[in-house]
């Protein structure tokens, strides 16, 4: 199986996030892969962070165990994509 590039992962993650977190109506103008997911930016909350942990596990087979790691991984779609590319199990 061909390994996805970071750019391909970004496109996929963007679609998945919008679908999983019902973000269709609340996307801010200028939202891109570098927009912060929490706080100012997308404004996600703690429940969303749990949804993201499950998404990483279900879709990419990555178990995030260290909460401190999550803070970095979930900064933006780009940081998520980079983390997935680096840590997803090799097929």
């Amino acid at each position, binding site marked *: 199986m061909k390994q996805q590039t970071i750019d391909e992962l970004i496109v996929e993650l963007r679609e998945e996030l919008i679908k999983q977190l*019902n973000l269709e*109506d609340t996307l801010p103008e200028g939202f891109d892969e570098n927009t912060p997911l929490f706080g100012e930016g997308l404004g996600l909350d703690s429940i969303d962070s*749990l*949804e993201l942990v499950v998404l990483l596990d279900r879709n990419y087979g990555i178990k995030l165990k260290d909460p401190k790691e999550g803070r970095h991984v979930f900064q933006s779609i780009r940081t998520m994509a980079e983390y997935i590319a680096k840590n997803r199990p090799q097929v």
Partner: protein
Amino acid sequence: MGEKVEYFINGAGIISPQKTFDSNVFLTDVAQYDKNVLTCITPDFKAYINPIQMRRLSRMLRIGLSAATICLRDSKVFMPDGIVTATGYGFLDETAKFLGEVLKQNEKQLTPTYFMQSTSNALAGLVALTIKCMGYNNTFASKGYAFENALTDVMMQLNENASANFLVGAYDEAAEVQYKASMRVEHFKKECINNLSLFETPTKGSIQGEGSAFFMLTRKQSVSTWCGLLDMHVVYKPEGNELNDALKTFLSKNHIQPKDIDLIVSGASGDIDHDAILDSVIQSSLHTTFQTRFKHLSGEYCTATAFALWLGASMLKNQTVPEVVKVKKTQLPERLKNILVLNHYMGKSFTFILLTGLD
């Protein structure tokens, strides 16, 4: 007659299979359904819920939160001292989704949202979080008596604190999982009918409904007051003449004679078996009283008493009786004063509520 008014309904909000969310109209434009499941006519939720919050809410949570918000705005009490909700079966659709996911994912990797939205107290918590109400918060999930238990709880709370305002509400949804189960036990009609012909179909079963209604209950009359709530009583599985006797005792306890009741809100459900006891009590004790019905508009559900309470309170507030609810027309006084709600759920759980108009 003339019992002291103990409680006041100082605001209400309801979303039902009729266009009831708009308090400027009172059952003038009646919705018809050519199926046995009546679902809510919903407002534009954006008028009541901010979009960021709304994206994670299920349909029923949106309905419940909007009904609560309508009530808060109507009563002009934006920070109640407590919130009490009631539900017969809770959020069945979300529960089904959550359990479906448990099976699909083999009990692993479950997302939190479905679970959070499947708990019966999710609505009371959501309302409290939205308005930042840190006061008393409770939910009753007790089938046909859930709303009655919530009302009792609020009345007891108000007896302890006469200056408090309590938001009390109910919700139940017409979920597919419940409809299938209810059909097996003949709670709903086998034949498909139009909702407005519910009482002309003398067969077993009713039609399924849903809705959410909220009320602001206090012991202080205000400019927002709709009506007074004198008393409530419940009777479970009455036998023989028990229901009739209980009604007589209830009225007598409140110093009211049957002739003092201007109008009955009957919870007849269109089920030929379940309606028999209620009909016989009305025939026996209140046969000359003006009678209204509502389950052709709301459908049957565990907390339909909340719809009946809204209907009674609305008629007292507006001093009008919508044509669509009239069943037995007798002479009405110039000004409606006393309304008796007589509801039943599945011919087992019976409720009496006495409402009174204010001069």
